[in-house]
């Protein structure tokens, strides 16, 4: 009888070795390990054996059954792994084909810079105060210590409306007066605001100058605001906006609404101060005009300038955006060419 077990093993394993797919595997399992399969058949013959051989025979058939099951599982695993490998190979795609064009959308570069400014200044306690574009001559000039015919009015070519009392603001500074009057409670409360907004000047539109541009003005008024505070505050802004070790320098300048007045330069962040085309080989980039609020302006805002002081500064986000991104033409900003906007 032992021959029949050996023969079956031999036949079964040989058959299994030539199987390459699931159907073959199923058929093989039915033929050898199924309820009516060959191994079951051997179990069925146990009864016909002499009693003394039954136990041994049974043990051997059991062993055969275990051996065939194991062989089957091994073969099954092999076939599956081969199939998976084949499927993976066949499923390969051309990863260099173009992506599906998803619409990305984008925020205008000017807005992006304004957001950066607003965030930095908010962290330093300066909140946004919005003021109007169409202004009275009085707010844009006279209350800012620029009476009619003042020579400094020549510094700004103004768009006037058909009502000579009304113009398009040439700078965000008239917002200083409005902020002081709105928030200062009759010259009794300190103020820290920034005033972002569109400004207008009657200029030739070129790659370097526009008839409209945005500004961000900052204003701090208090009982003890010092010029050293202005310097410290601007230096802190430069650190946050440009780099933690940005050097800043100050040049004396003139704005009718501040005194003393200073221009603020930051070390050129493109060449590290070594001199390049962008900084005109000076190592410095002008980033702001600033100064201590002029006593007349404090008065016009409702404050007593012998008791109160303040500082103010103004910056041009477009210019800073241009420097940062190497934009050569300011007209890109309001041109709204998607090929420009999509680069942000």
């Amino acid at each position, binding site marked *: 009888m032992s021959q029949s077990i050996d023969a079956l093993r031999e036949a079964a394993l040989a058959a299994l070795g030539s199987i390459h797919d699931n159907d073959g595997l199923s058929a093989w399992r039915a033929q050898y390990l199924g309820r009516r399969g060959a191994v079951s058949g051997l179990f069925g013959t146990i009864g016909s054996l002499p009693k003394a051989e039954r136990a041994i025979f049974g043990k051997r058939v059991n062993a055969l059954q275990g051996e065939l099951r194991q062989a089957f599982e091994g073969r099954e695993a092999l076939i599956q792994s081969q199939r998976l490998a084949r499927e993976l190979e066949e499923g390969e795609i051309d990863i260099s084909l173009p992506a599906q064009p998803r619409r990305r959308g984008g925020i205008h570069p000017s*807005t992006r810079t304004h957001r950066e400014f607003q965030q930095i200044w908010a962290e330093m306690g300066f909140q946004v105060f919005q003021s109007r574009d169409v202004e009275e001559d009085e707010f844009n000039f006279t209350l800012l210590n620029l009476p009619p015919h003042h020579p400094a009015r020549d510094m700004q070519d103004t768009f006037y*409306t058909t009502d000579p009392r009304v113009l398009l603001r040439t700078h965000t500074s008239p917002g200083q007066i409005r902020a002081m009057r709105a928030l200062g409670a009759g010259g009794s409360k300190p103020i*820290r605001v920034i005033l972002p907004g569109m400004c207008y000047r009657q200029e030739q539109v070129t790659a370097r100058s526009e008839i*409209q541009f945005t500004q961000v003005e900052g204003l701090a008024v208090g009982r003890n605001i010092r010029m050293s505070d202005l310097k410290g505050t601007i230096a802190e802004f430069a650190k946050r906006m440009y780099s933690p070790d940005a050097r800043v320098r100050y040049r004396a300048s003139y704005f009718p609404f501040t*005194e003393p007045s200073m221009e603020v330069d930051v070390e050129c962040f493109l060449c590290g101060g070594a001199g390049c085309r962008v900084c005109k080989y000076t190592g410095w980039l002008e980033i702001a005009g600033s100064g201590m609020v002029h006593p007349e302006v404090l008065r016009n805002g409702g404050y007593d300038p012998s008791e109160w002081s303040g500082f103010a500064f103004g910056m041009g986000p477009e210019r800073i955006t241009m420097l940062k991104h190497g934009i050569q033409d300011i007209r890109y900003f309001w041109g709204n060419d998607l090929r420009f906007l999509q680069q942000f």
Partner: protein
Amino acid sequence: MLVPITWLREYVDIEVPVELLAERLTLAGLEVAHLRYIGLPQATVPGLVMPRSDHLVWERDKLLLGRIVEVKAHPNADRLVMALVEYGGGELEQCVTGAPNLFEYKDQGEISPPLWCALALEGATVWDGHSDKPRRATLKGRELRGIYNKSMVCSEKELGISDEHEGVILMDHDERFVAGMALADVLGDVLLDIEFTPNLARCLSMVGVAREVAAILGTEMRYPAYDFLAEGAPIAEQVAIDIREPALNPRFTLTLLRDTKVRQSPFWLRHRLKLIGQRPRNNIVDVTNYITFELGQPLHAFDYDKLCQRAGGLPTIITRLPQPGEQLETLDGEARALGAETILVADTAGALSLGGVIGGGETEISAETQNVLLESAAWNNISIRKTLREQKVHTEASARFSRGVHPSQAILGCQRGIELMRQLGGGTIASGVLDNYPAPPPAPTVALPIARVRQLLGMEVALADAAAVLRRLEFEVAIEGDVMLATAPDFRLDISADAVVGQADLIEEIARIIGYDQIPDTIMADEMPPQRENTAVLTEERIRDILAAQGLYEVINYRFTSRESEAQLLPAGAPMPAADSYVEIANPAASERNVLRRTLLGNMLENVVNNGRYQASQQLFEIGKVYLGGGALLPQEPQRLGIFLTGARAQPWWQEESPAPPMDFYDLKGVLENVLAALHIEDFRYERGTQPSLHPGRSADLLVAGERIGSFGEIHPQVAARFKLTAAPALYGEFAVAPLMRQQRRLHKVAALPTRPAVLEDIALIVRADMPAGAVEAVIRQAGGRLLKEVTLFDVYMGEPIPPGKKSLAYALTFQDDARTLTDKNAAKIRKKIIGAARHRLNAELRS
């Protein structure tokens, strides 16, 4: 203004390199925009970054001061001469040259007085005088028409002084000249190109700049001599002054030089004027220009005899306002009609010049002039500014008077000018100066406690140091305890008599001379105002983010447009806004930008048309102001949100077999509803659109909390056609931002996630074709009650087998109960209720 360092050094010693001086001036508020080198090398200053200059540096051993001893004819050429030039050690160099200005000396023997020139020896590098473009050339020996030549007498162009190449440089004799000196020590220079802010009117001269240099460097100022040799008859017997408007003409002075000669100015004077960009004319006019630039006090010279002729005797100079209709022909040949506010210099016969601006032609200096009457006056700067605006004329005189020249300077200019004229042209100066100065302004004295300086600057400044700075700036300073009493020098108009403003004026002077870099950086110690978020700004930024996240690009446009452009946005027959509802620009940049926009649509249409040239599918938005005028002095400036969509819903892609369909009304509606959803605005509804720029049947108005805040939809076909936007629907919406800000819910409740399974049911209803889907959905929702969580329309169908005039609307319904698990039976019951309501209220039938 161009400031030659050689000229500046007449008034102040400068021990530092000019590059460092430029930096110090710039930091102190006199911005040196550019340095122009003439012959001298550019110095490197440690720590100072400068643009490299590409000028010609004169080699000290090859470019020399030469003395032209004799000029001989060239044996073989009429157009050439040979100059024998001494250049030290008694050696003579023979230079062959074609310089026309040497021909007058040809074969005249030894030249006396000595004539000096710029001599380039063999091997020297100069600019090629014949090249149009800057090109360097090195001198080599060669034959010129048979005469060997290895050196050159140079023109200004060859040395890089100017573009002049007509003749060679010929200098008048000067005691300091020695043949063979390095030319760099004679003509070498650096020009500082200084830009002056309006407060620096006092600096618009060499002396003005020198004062600043002296204060900055802490050195002494050397003023020019103001004394003059007056040997003639008293001036008062020869001319009179009559000031009729002392407010406009606070001072008028006159001097007289008799029997002088009008001729070419000497080399030094012509050279200086040319360096600073002025054209030399004759010795008299050149002196008036020279003093204008030296002292900042403009002068005007009259031909005295012409004045006498006009007066028929002794002239009286009158300063007055014009008579109605009065005219004057000025030096520039313009016949000018004079406005009522133009201050004139006149005589009894009529107007002579525009005071402080430009002279008249009739009494100007000519080659025949013998007697010169010199005017040096002071003018009110505002009055001058009005004249400039009216007459559209700008002169060096008006540039100074319009910014403000202190009347104290008039007498100095008069004295210095007349003496210089005498020295250059000869003659006799009348005794005395006729000086009419009715009301000299008091010099302001400011009381400045040192504590105020320290407090405002945030810096420890010693009283003595602050006072020293002011004294360097020529303030008179008395010290009383801790207070400085500082009196402004007589050339300054910018120090206020107001106690607090005057203090600020002085503190600025102290800070800028000490240097702003000396002030420490501090953190504000002052009370911090309460911090309030600006909700309007935050909402706007939120909306921007929502729209960008949906694939829209933000645009920012000009706020300018024209009424005609805005009319293009309306279909024929639609009424335009009233004319006065526009803010109109009096001096527009262009006629198509002469009013401020009342809508964002015009700009955005332009954007879409421009971008459409290369991008068919566009999604844009803008948040910006519109300007609604009318009535009040200032317009309303509400913030608006504009959204523009057009083109294919998706961009073409290789996996899509056919192009995506164009976006339509519902795409825009989807963008809008995402905005509303993100702001948690739930109380909104739509009504049929009323905005005339939009297609009346394909647009809607948005009402938020009952308020109509904007419209959206397809652009009116007539408008779209004007802009050639007909390939795909052009979709536009414009909304007021403020109501969105007010109605947004900044703190909204979050619903708990459902724990019970939902039951899904579909339902298709057949209704009248013109039944709004919104009405059907409303009935479904109402009948469905609280267990009906979602209603999604997934099909709209017309045509077989639906009867004509009807349509089928198919909805997916989601039923869910948070408290229990719904059975199909529960759902069927609600469904039945919905069908019943639809049948009853909409006359709808269930599609089987």
